[in-house]
Structures are given as C-alpha cells and as structure tokens.
C-alpha cells in the first residue's frame, strides 16, 4: 500500500505544480483585459474599472481544469492509448442507420414541429432552426467540393453566395423574373465568377490561395458597399419578390396559396414551402457530390488534395481540374444565395462578411473534410447551437439580465476551430468511403472481418 500511496501523493504534487504554472500563465494572459475594464464615465472619459473576482474565478477554473487534466484525464488517455483499439462495428452500424434516419427526420420535421408547438411556435422552429441550418448545410456541402474534395482552401466563398443573392435580388427587382427562372441564372453567374476569379489564382500554393480568395471576397463586398447606384450600398436591396408556389403567391388574397387550397391564411405555409425548397436544393448538392466523387473528375479532385505534383505527372491538367471544383462550389453558393435573398426579402453587404466565409469553412473543417455526414452534423451543431443560445433565457437568471449569450457565439466558434484542429485535424468524421472497390465491397461473409479492419484503418488519422 505504501508505494501506491506515495505514488498518488507524488502525482498530486506534480499535478498541483502544473496547475500552479498554468494558473500563473493564465493570470498573466487575463490580467490586462479581464482584470481591467475600460469604460466611459458620465463625462465620456475613458476610465478603468477592476474585475478582480472575475479574474480570480477564471484563473481558478483554468488552473483547476489543468489540475484535473494532469491528475485524472492525462493518465486515463495514456492508459487508453495502450489498450488495443476497440471494434468499430458499432460505429459502422450507427453510420448505416444515421443517414436514412436523418433524411426521414428532415422530411417529417415541419409537420412534426407544427403538431408539437402549434402554428405560432412552429414558424420559429421551422425558420430559425430548419431553414437556417439547411442553408448552412447546403453552403457547407458546396464548399466541401472545393475544400474537402479538391483541398483548395477558399476563404472568400461568401462572395459567390453574395453574387447569387444580388443576382436574384437585382434581376427580380428590375425585370420581374420569377424565382424559378432566376435560380439557375444566379447559379450560373456565380459559377462564371468562380471561373473568372479562379483562373488567375488557382496555380498559387495552398496558403497563398487562401489569402487571395479572402482578398477577392473582401473586394466583392467592398464593391457591393461602394457601388451605390446599383447595389444601394450599405442600405441594401429590399422588396425582393418572395418565391411563389409555382405561380401561386403565399399571400392573403383570393389568388393566394391558402385560398386556392381552401386553407386558412397563415405565414406558416410559406415557411414550410421554403423549408422544402432548401431541403431539396441541399439534397441536390449532396447527390451531385456523391455522383461526382465516383466519376473521374471527383477522383481527380481528391487526388489533387492528396498530391498535386503526382497528379501532374499523370497527365492531369490541374488548373482545369481545380477550376471545375471552384466553379461547381461557386454554383451551389449561388443557388443558396438566391434562396437566401428570396427568403429574406432584403439583403445588404452585412450578410456577406469574411466572418460568414470563416463560419462556412469552419463547418467543413470541423465536420471532416470530404464527409457529407460530418459537414451536416457540424452545421447542425454550430448553427443550431447558436440559435439555441438565443433561447437560453435561464442563463440570465444566473449571470444577470445584461448577459447576452449570443455574443459568445463567435467566441465559441473560434475556440472550437482551434480545439478541433488540435484534437482531430481531420475533423469529426475522418472516414473516407472509397469511390470504388475491386472486390465488390467485400460483401462475402468470409471477408467481413477484414472489411471491418479496412474501415478501422481508414478512420486512422494520417499526417502529411
């Protein structure tokens, strides 16, 4: 017993020392900006206030967390690393059920929300959660083609979203064309811009490409702000026509959707319709991705992500290959953009900032580059999570009435990006389903164990 006790004691002392060091560093990091607060007094002068209790609490939490990590979590992780890897069978089975289940849920979601919360509550649930999340799922899946498959980090993706939105808004307002005609036009215009911007930059190195796409994204936003005669600048474009049910408007008139179908008028029908439109658009994006991955162009994209020089040595025109990925991604952003404009009825440059691009990149990266399921899960967590934050009124009871959970949204977003990169650089779902099999998916029962092994080996993260 004695050696064990002394072992424990020394571990506690070691953990305490680590906690003390971490606490000291945290104190240094937090002292200037948490310990002190700059506020304006009545005479509009900047004065300092101290927040010692807050500082002490934060340092204590960090030091305490480090202590527990050193004492309990780190040894547990070390022990787990020594154990053989567990079977991945349950996870594989889960993945098989997840897709049909999620799809079924997405289809029955509006009636479900309607029956649970009633007409009043359902608008919020279908619009804020359903439509909002699905827009980001679609954007994530679109960018997934560029970042996840082709490995091109595009930090200006929101520019194509903006091109789609403004194309619809301006063309609908000036020519009175309908949503269904403008949707493909907006997609094509966005793809055209994708080719135009992509052509000069796609031979650049990975990180340079990222920064140049960021610059292009910002240039397009600044043009939207400053070209007032066309875009109306900061004020944005309003009065954008809303989509109709194939010609039947969603309004209270006799010609409206509700009257035609003998229903009582309610805004909920439009919301439900919009929900199914974006769901269909998102599913088209997914279907295209699945299809393209099995075609030579999709394999070339993935090969490009793995090793560009090897691609060139095999006679692949990498510029064209990148350009198709870029244009394809831009086209889906254009679709999503015109849907966004139609749903909002109003757009302004504020909706297309760099932060928006960063959020979409974060969704793709966190979900697992190339994984459709992962991207969808990440979008649900990240966008649904921030929407839920708006609902957390009980936090006001704890932290006071001034507490606004939504302002922590981007803070947590940034933190999650760093955390996921450090913890799982390949994202939440790092599996990769091969696009084709030589041995017919190894469906033979005798090969089944080996198939599991293959799955496990694909899960393993690779570096390089």
């Amino acid at each position, binding site marked *: 017993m004695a050696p064990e006790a002394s072992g424990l004691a020394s571990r506690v002392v070691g953990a305490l020392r680590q906690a003390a060091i971490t606490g000291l560093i945290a104190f240094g990091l937090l002292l200037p900006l948490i310990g002190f607060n700059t506020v304006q007094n009545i005479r509009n002068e900047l004065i300092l206030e101290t927040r010692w209790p807050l500082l002490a609490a934060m340092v204590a939490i960090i030091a305490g967390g480090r202590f527990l990590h050193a004492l309990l979590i780190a040894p547990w992780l070390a022990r787990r690393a020594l154990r053989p890897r567990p079977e991945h069978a349950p996870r594989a089975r889960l993945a098989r059920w997840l897709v049909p289940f999620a799809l079924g849920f997405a289809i029955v979601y509006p009636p479900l929300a309607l029956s649970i919360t009633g007409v009043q509550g359902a608008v919020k649930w279908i619009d804020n959660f359903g439509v909002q999340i699905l827009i980001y799922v679609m954007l994530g899946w679109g960018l997934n083609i560029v970042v996840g498959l082709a490995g091109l980090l595009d930090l200006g993706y929101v520019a194509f979203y903006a091109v789609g939105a403004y194309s619809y808004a301006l063309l609908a307002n000036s020519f009175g064309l309908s949503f269904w005609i403008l949707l493909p036009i907006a997609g094509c215009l966005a793809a055209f811009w994708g080719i135009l911007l992509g052509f000069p930059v796609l031979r650049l190195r990975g990180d340079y490409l990222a920064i140049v796409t960021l610059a292009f994204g910002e240039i397009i936003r600044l043009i939207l702000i400053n070209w007032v005669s066309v875009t109306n600048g900061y004020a944005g474009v309003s009065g954008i026509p809303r989509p109709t049910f194939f010609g039947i408007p969603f309004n209270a008139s006799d010609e409206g959707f509700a009257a035609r179908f003998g229903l009582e008028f309610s805004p909920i029908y439009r919301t439900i319709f919009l929900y199914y439109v974006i769901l269909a658009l998102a599913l088209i994006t997914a279907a*295209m991705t699945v*299809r*393209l991955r099995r*075609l*030579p*162009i999709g*394999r*070339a994209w*993935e*090969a490009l992500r*793995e*090793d560009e*020089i*090897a*691609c*060139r*040595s*095999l*006679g*692949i*025109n*990498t510029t064209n290959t990148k350009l*198709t990925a870029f244009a394809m991604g831009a086209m889906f952003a254009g679709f999503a953009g015109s849907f966004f404009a139609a749903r909002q009825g109003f757009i302004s440059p504020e909706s297309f900032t760099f932060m928006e691009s960063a959020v979409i990149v974060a969704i793709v990266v966190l979900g697992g580059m190339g994984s459709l399921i992962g991207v969808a899960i990440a979008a649900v967590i990240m966008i649904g999570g921030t929407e839920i934050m708006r609902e957390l009124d009980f936090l006001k009871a704890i932290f006071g009435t001034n507490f606004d959970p939504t302002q922590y949204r981007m803070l947590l977003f940034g933190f999650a990006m760093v955390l996921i990169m450090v913890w799982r650089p390949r994202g939440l779902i790092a599996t*990769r389903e*091969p*696009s*084709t*099999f*030589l*041995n017919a998916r*190894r469906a033979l029962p005798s090969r089944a164990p080996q198939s599991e092994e*293959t799955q496990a*080996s*694909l899960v393993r993260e*690779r570096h*390089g």
Partner: protein
Amino acid sequence: MSVTSYDAAAAGARPSGSARPSNLAPVLRVEHLSMRFGGLVAINDFSFAARRGDITALIGPNGAGKTTVFNCITGFYKPSEGRIALQFGDPGVWEELSALTERGTRSVTRGDGMLFLLERMPDYLVAHRARVARTFQNIRLFQGMTVLENLLVAQHNSLMWASGFTVLGALGLRSYARAERSAIDKARYWLDRTGLTDRADDPAGELPYGGQRRLEIARAMCTDPVLLCLDEPAAGLNPNESADLGRYLHKIRDEHATSILLIEHDMTVVMEISDYIVVLDHGQKIADGTPDEIRNDPRVIAAYLGVEEEEVAERAIGTQ
C-alpha cells in the same frame, strides 16, 4: 494490353544486361541540356540518347544533377538551354527534328510517328501527350485513396473522355460504365503484376514501403507510357525486393512498348538490369556505355571514389 511484335520477339532472345544491337532508333534524345538556378549551374551542356526498348540508367554521385535532368525531361523544370526530343511510332519522324525546332511548335506527326520537344511542353502535357510517365524519389502516392483508386486516377484522361467530360457520366450512361470496367481491368492486370491485388481496397498509405514503390510504378504504367522515368526505384528496398524489382522492370521492358530511364544509386541493381548507362558528375556527362564499359571506366571510378588522377591511370592500366 498492347505488346509490340518487336518486344515479344526480342524478349526471349535477350539476356539481361548484355550488349544489344545498336541500330535501334532512340526514343529520347537530350541535347546540350543546361539548367541554371540563379548562379548555380546544376546541369551543363549534357547530351545523351535512350534507345527504344532499352533500360537506360542515369548514375552519378550525390548532387550530380540526376533528378534535375528528370525534372527537365518530365516538364517540371524549364531547362535554361537545350533540346529534349521524344519520339514514338514510325521512327522516320526523327527526320523532322530540325524543322520542328525551327518552327517553334511542340510536336510533329508523320504517318503514325510522333515527335515531341518536351522542353516546350508543360508537365501535364509531357505525361498526357508525349506519354512520359515518372515516379518520384520520395514516393508520391495519393495516400488516403485506395490502391485501386490510385490506378484509376492514372487513367484520368481516357476516363474523362469516356465520361464525356463528366456530363455523360453524371447522367449515368452505359458507355462510361463500360469504360470504367475496362479501366478497372487494366488496374487489375497491374495489381496482379505487382502482387497487390489483395490490398486493392486499402489506402495506399498503409502499404509497406516496398509495396508503395511497386504501386507507384504500376500507377505510372497505367498511363501506357512510351518512356518510364524511375527516380531511385530501389531506394529503401532490401536485397530481395531489389532483385524482384529488377525482374519486374525486365518484364515491363520485354512485354510492353515501354522504354525505361532510371536513376539509381544501388550499383548492383544498375549493373544487373541496365542495357546502357550514362554517368553524370557535377552536371556534366563523364561517361556512357554498356555496364561492362562503365564498370571499368577510370573516370567513373574517380568520380565515385574521389581518387587522384594518377591513381586512376594506374588502376586503369592494372585492369587491362
């Protein structure tokens, strides 16, 4: 698979590594090649020719510029000076060489013969049009993709054509499905050749080192190359694997219309498998000839062992 009558006939009659008839037209001619990086002269006025159906080895001490020559041939570097010509089909097209050089275009066709000036072509066209395939010193596989997928990516251009540049393939046309099946058949052929069939559905990065080397060669062969450039194919292999590699390369040479150009440090391998050897030192050619000639060449010995001139002379006398 296309097996030329010439290769099939010569295969049995030809003991490996021995001298061969020299009346064959070259597949590749490198003339007065120079490559400078800033002030550094990596290759200086280097010329050689590789004959069709030969295994030609490019050897030399570390830093001699061998990989730079490869990068110039395969279009990854633009040489500062010089001409790199590659030909396939009817050898008569060689007569067009000077006219082609004058004209400033990339290639010329005569009958079924084609002649290319590689220094005028971007890297992917060197591979796609001139049909030069290569491997890399530090293996470059698509590590996250399966072995089979690696071999399908190599057939990208023919599959792209078959898929109607994606449009027809996306519509699910029969003809594309057929093309993909035949691409898989070709992949299966090379997998059987390299003994990787069992691992076809594993990620390429999970293969053992020797397997990765073999896969890289198989991938290059899936492009149906006229010239296969191998950058140190035996590096990191054990003696057994090296011997296998030699047999594998001989099979490629004998059964396919592919000539081989290789860089190698392992002299046993080089002497065993090459038909012709070119020695490069400090960016200049110091010797070329059959393995036997090279083995006894005093300049080569000097370059490799760094011995004094007189000593070389003595040794050269001693061996004669």
